């Protein structure tokens, strides 16, 4: 039960509300409201992880989202393991299970720490240099080993069982950050009646008031004021408060992405709750109140567990009631650490000494520290920390060198100053400007309708932060249409704290020429020396330094390290900081889970599934389905004991001997209607249409403007002003888009209407010698005799009492009909046709048999036998060009020199010398199999099947000069040996086409 470092009476947690958790299997006690970090510290645990590269022991640096070190894995069950959770952000719940990462066999004894000894080999850019030779070893040896040894947590290997939700929201004023300034802005905006959203990453609003014990607003303690203000905002209908919500991305036109952590802090979250909620907010005005982040001091071995930021130690004390040690050292370059020392001292914690880099620190803070009897060593530096798994002492030296003195400590708190959080401002494409006086980047030129307030805008006192926030909130609300503030009064800071000054870069003992490990970027193990080395090796731009050293590239994105790195690079280059430049801030501000981004779009909801009206029948018949785009298409219909091969063979034979029924409903269908419909068709398709009689069909080919085949399909002319156009299944949407494009922009003078009717009409293909006998008994009002309705004709009438557009056409080479009926009747008409078909021995067939049958006839499939670089001539389809036409899409492109040059690949048939061998689609074709590798490839196989009807394998291929190679022997080299093939016509069955006419 005992939490040895919890101080009775300190902090804001309730002692009676306890919780239990385990860390690396060991049980601990905590209080409700603790973060994992505060709970571990309450139990005296500082060592929580091993570093990325050197496997150095690491502790807790911060008390917030900037944490680079304390990354742990949190495990709820086998499927719900979250790696790289910041212990400073994770709230403790009863039963929490957490593990340390990147250590083996244990956290206190880690074999990987050998890297620390060999660190001279792992300096900046080491993997660019050390592992260059031999080349092949990179993939097989170096990379796998580096990846295994370096790294962060382990990702879970089971599907995530949590669910995530997504909300879109609109508001007039979005306030990002719920510290003093953000709350003031929200108050001002909310009082005007406009819709306000206030978001903060912490569980409770208040920001730095969490630790600033000296803040008093409107006569109240700062934290109390914040909670009262939040209570007031919570009671207003026009305000939405989002705690535990991180604004991770600021996009165009005030579109901000936020993730709300809904259940990560709950012991037993209900299944109805999403784990996280993604908010996509469009705001008229955005107030950025993201505060500032404290920086650490840079000196040798400044990464030892027990060394942390001063503000963090203060947060743990003032909010969580936890002392970070019993004998705490302080290393400062500004006043911020004094406040922490004073608070700790007053709480009864021993302060070993304050080491202040400044020569003559003065002011009330310094006076108060002195009055409390704290030893202050000014003009001195901590040049080294001792202790391995926990800091045990610090070595202090006058800053310009001199006698060393060792001071025993069990913790060291440091502050080198504060960095304004301009991340979101910068993401909004605003330009930051370097303020020379205060040595920091602040918001400069704005790109969007937003305003930065408070510490992120350089406000150095609570009064200014409140003023800026309130004024910005009121102004934003007014500009967004809010009424004049009704009752609001500006919050007034009676007392506050503020932190100016500090230093950037390496402290004494870690400067130029030293080889100590003075860390800048803890998470990526980047030291001051690494930055200098990068510059010495020729990196001039900060972007190059960043990539060479990986400074700021870890999951914390350098929130504590970027300014130190920049300062050292600038110093080494002998340039000013603004000349070296700042690296780009990119989304996300902190890591975002894949679950939040993927959200509902997983499993069946990843992509819509399209099913035809006849789908249930095929399913009941035991059809095997294949995915074609979003469509589920019946692939083949296996009978008991049949494999795919046997089923497809049977289906193919049935179509040629009796008949087959095929669900062609997925075909794209577009109705082209209007007085100028024929003119439009003339322009979009290569074929002539004006003279096509109503009631007749034509195979239509469409090119792109560049002259390559784009789509094809049979077109029926229903009337002078009405065409029923079919497209490929996959091409339906893009053909419609292309038609609309030309109609709206190039040929707007044509009076034509286009309507997608793909889903309105179900299509049942009845193909085979007995197809007419199957269709005839069900058709009313249409003479379907060969004379009255020859091949390639279309009639309107009725079938089974419902309207039909009945096409006499064939994609199988047999006499055939395609029965179009309104989709709602598709299943009923299919069942009626199926019943008739049964009398004639018809079989249902799927897409595989359809493919084989069309290949037996040499019919191409656009997208399989063509690939966007095939011309009509290549495909042997020149006959489909209207020779007298003066314009159509592609008419000029198809005569480009390269498209009419000799030697182009043409579609031919291939017969393997061994008829039983079926070629592989995509296999390459060569003329001489004995040439040296790499061989000259002259073509490739586009379609290949076993044809039961031909009693042999058949294939189509694109082969250079293919049509002039008829009868030639070519070769298809495969891993199992070279296959001999003979070039032939792509028509393998019924070459004269007599069967089409019955």
């Amino acid at each position, binding site marked *: 039960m005992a939490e040895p470092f919890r101080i009775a009476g300190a902090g804001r947690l309730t002692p009676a509300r306890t919780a239990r958790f385990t860390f690396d299997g060991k049980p601990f006690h905590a209080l409700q409201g603790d973060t994992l970090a505060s709970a571990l510290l309450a139990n005296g645990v500082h060592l929580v992880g091993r570093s990325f590269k050197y496997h150095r022991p690491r502790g807790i640096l911060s008390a917030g989202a900037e944490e680079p070190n304390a990354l742990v894995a949190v495990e709820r069950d086998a499927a719900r393991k979250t790696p790289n959770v910041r212990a400073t952000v994770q709230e403790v719940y009863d039963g929490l299970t957490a593990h340390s990462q990147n250590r083996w066999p244990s956290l206190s004894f880690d074999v990987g720490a050998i890297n620390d000894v060999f660190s001279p080999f792992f300096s900046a850019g080491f993997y660019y240099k050390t592992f260059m030779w031999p080349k092949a070893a990179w993939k097989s040896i170096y990379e796998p080993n580096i990846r295994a040894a370096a790294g962060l947590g382990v990702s879970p290997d089971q599907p995530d069982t949590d669910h995530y939700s997504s909300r879109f929201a609109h508001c007039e004023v979005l306030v990002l950050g719920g510290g003093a300034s953000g709350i003031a802005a929200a108050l001002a905006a909310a009082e005007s009646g406009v819709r306000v959203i206030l978001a903060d990453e912490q569980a409770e609003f208040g920001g730095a008031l969490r630790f600033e014990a000296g803040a*008093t607003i409107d006569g109240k303690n700062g934290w109390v004021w914040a909670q009262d203000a939040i209570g007031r905002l919570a009671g207003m209908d026009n305000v939405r408060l989002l705690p535990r919500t991180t604004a991770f991305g600021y996009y165009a036109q005030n579109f901000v992405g936020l993730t709300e952590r809904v259940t990560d802090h709950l012991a037993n979250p209900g299944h109805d709750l999403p784990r996280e909620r993604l908010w996509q907010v469009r705001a008229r005005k955005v107030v950025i109140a993201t505060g500032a982040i404290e920086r650490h001091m840079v000196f040798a071995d400044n990464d030892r567990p027990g060394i942390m930021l001063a503000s963090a130690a203060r947060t743990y004390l003032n909010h969580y009631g936890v002392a970070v040690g019993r004998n705490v050292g302080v290393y400062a370059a500004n006043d911020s650490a004094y406040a922490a020392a004073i608070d700790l001292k007053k709480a009864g914690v021993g302060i070993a000494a304050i080491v202040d880099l400044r020569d003559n620190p003065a002011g009330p803070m310094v006076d108060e520290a002195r009055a409390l009897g704290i030893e202050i060593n000014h003009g001195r530096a901590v040049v080294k920390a001792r202790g391995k798994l926990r800091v045990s002492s610090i070595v202090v030296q006058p800053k310009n060198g001199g006698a060393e003195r060792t001071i025993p400590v069990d913790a060291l708190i440091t502050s080198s100053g504060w960095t304004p959080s301009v991340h979101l401002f910068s993401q909004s*494409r605003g330009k930051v400007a370097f303020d020379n006086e205060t040595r920091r980047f602040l918001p400069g030129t704005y790109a969007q309708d937003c305003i930065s307030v408070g510490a992120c805008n350089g*406000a150095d006192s609570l009064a200014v932060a409140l003023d800026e926030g309130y004024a910005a909130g009121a102004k934003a609300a007014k500009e967004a249409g809010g009424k004049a503030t009704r009752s609001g009064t500006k919050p007034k800071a009676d*007392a506050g704290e*503020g932190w100016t000054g500090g230093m950037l870069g390496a402290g004494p003992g870690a400067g130029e020429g030293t080889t100590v490990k003075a860390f800048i970027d803890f998470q990526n193990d980047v030291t001051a020396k690494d930055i200098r080395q990068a510059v010495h090796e020729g990196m001039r731009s900060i972007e190059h330094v960043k990539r060479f050293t990986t400074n700021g590239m870890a999951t914390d994105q350098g929130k504590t390290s970027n300014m130190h790195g920049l300062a050292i690079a600038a110093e080494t280059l002998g340039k000013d900081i603004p000349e070296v430049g700042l690296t780009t801030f990119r989304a996300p501000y902190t890591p975002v889970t894949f679950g939040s981004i993927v959200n509902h779009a997983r499993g069946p909801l990843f992509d819509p599934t399209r099913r035809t009206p006849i789908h249930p029948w095929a399913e009941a018949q035991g059809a095997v389905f294949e995915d074609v785009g979003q469509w589920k298409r019946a692939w083949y219909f296996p009978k008991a004991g049949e494999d795919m091969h046997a089923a497809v063979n049977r289906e193919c034979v049935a179509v040629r001997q009796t008949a087959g029924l095929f669900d062609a409903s997925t075909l794209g269908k577009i109705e082209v209607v209007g007085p100028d419909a024929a003119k439009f068709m003339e322009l979009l398709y290569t074929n002539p249409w004006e003279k096509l009689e109503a009631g007749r069909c034509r195979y239509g080919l469409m090119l792109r403007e560049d002259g390559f085949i784009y789509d094809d399909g049979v077109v029926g002319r229903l009337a002078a002003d009405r065409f029923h156009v079919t497209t490929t299944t996959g091409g339906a949407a893009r053909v419609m888009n292309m038609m609309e494009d030309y109609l709206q922009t190039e040929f707007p003078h044509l009076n034509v209407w286009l309507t997608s009717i793909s889903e309105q009409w179900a299509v049942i293909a009845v193909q085979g010698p007995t197809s007419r006998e199957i269709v005839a008994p069900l058709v009313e009002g249409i003479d379907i005799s060969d004379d009255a309705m020859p091949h390639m004709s279309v009639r309107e009438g009725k079938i089974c009492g419902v309207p039909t557009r009945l096409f006499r056409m064939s994609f199988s080479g047999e006499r055939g009909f395609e029965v179009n009926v309104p989709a709602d009747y598709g299943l009923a008409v299919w069942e009626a046709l199926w019943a008739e078909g049964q009398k004639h021995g018809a079989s249902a067939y799927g897409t595989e048999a359809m493919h084989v049958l069309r290949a037996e006839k040499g019919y191409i499939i656009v997208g399989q036998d063509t690939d966007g670089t095939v011309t009509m001539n290549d495909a042997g389809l020149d006959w489909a060009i209207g020779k007298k036409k003066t314009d159509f899409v592609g008419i000029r492109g198809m005569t480009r020199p390269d498209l009419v040059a000799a030697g182009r690949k043409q579609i031919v048939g291939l017969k393997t010398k061994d008829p039983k061998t079926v070629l592989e689609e995509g296999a390459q074709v060569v003329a001489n199999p004995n040439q040296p590798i790499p061989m000259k490839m002259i073509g490739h196989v586009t379609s290949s099947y076993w044809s039961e009807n031909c009693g042999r394998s058949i294939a189509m291929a694109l082969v250079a000069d293919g049509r002039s190679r008829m009868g030639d022997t070519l070769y298809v080299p495969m891993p199992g040996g070279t296959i001999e093939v003979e070039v032939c016509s792509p028509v393998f069955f019924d070459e004269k086409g007599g069967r089409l006419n019955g």
Partner: protein
Amino acid sequence: MLLIRCPYCEEERPELEFRNAGEAHVVRSSDMASISDEDFEKFFFIRNNPKGVIFERWRHVHGCARFFNAARDTVTDKFIVTYKAGMPKPDLDKITDAPSAVAATEPPAKKKPARRAPAKKKDA
């Protein structure tokens, strides 16, 4: 996500409803079949890729389905103006208050960093 004003629907709608359709004001010859190879190259292949204002086509594909034109700044992604297909290129100098353009705002005058206020609590 951008907000784009559809000149037919006459309102700003989210980018998800739209699809970019390439450069605008590329004129297809009325005598297509007989243009030279050079003219075809210009018509079909050569496109502007400016750092700055581009005139481009968009389709409100999940809305009214109309194609229209837009002038957009490729650096800021800001739409300067959108206009109906077939209308001439607008004179951008004359556009001051384009509906979907958000003017860049200058930051408010920077206050001098205040001297740190002493914490009164500790004086007490």
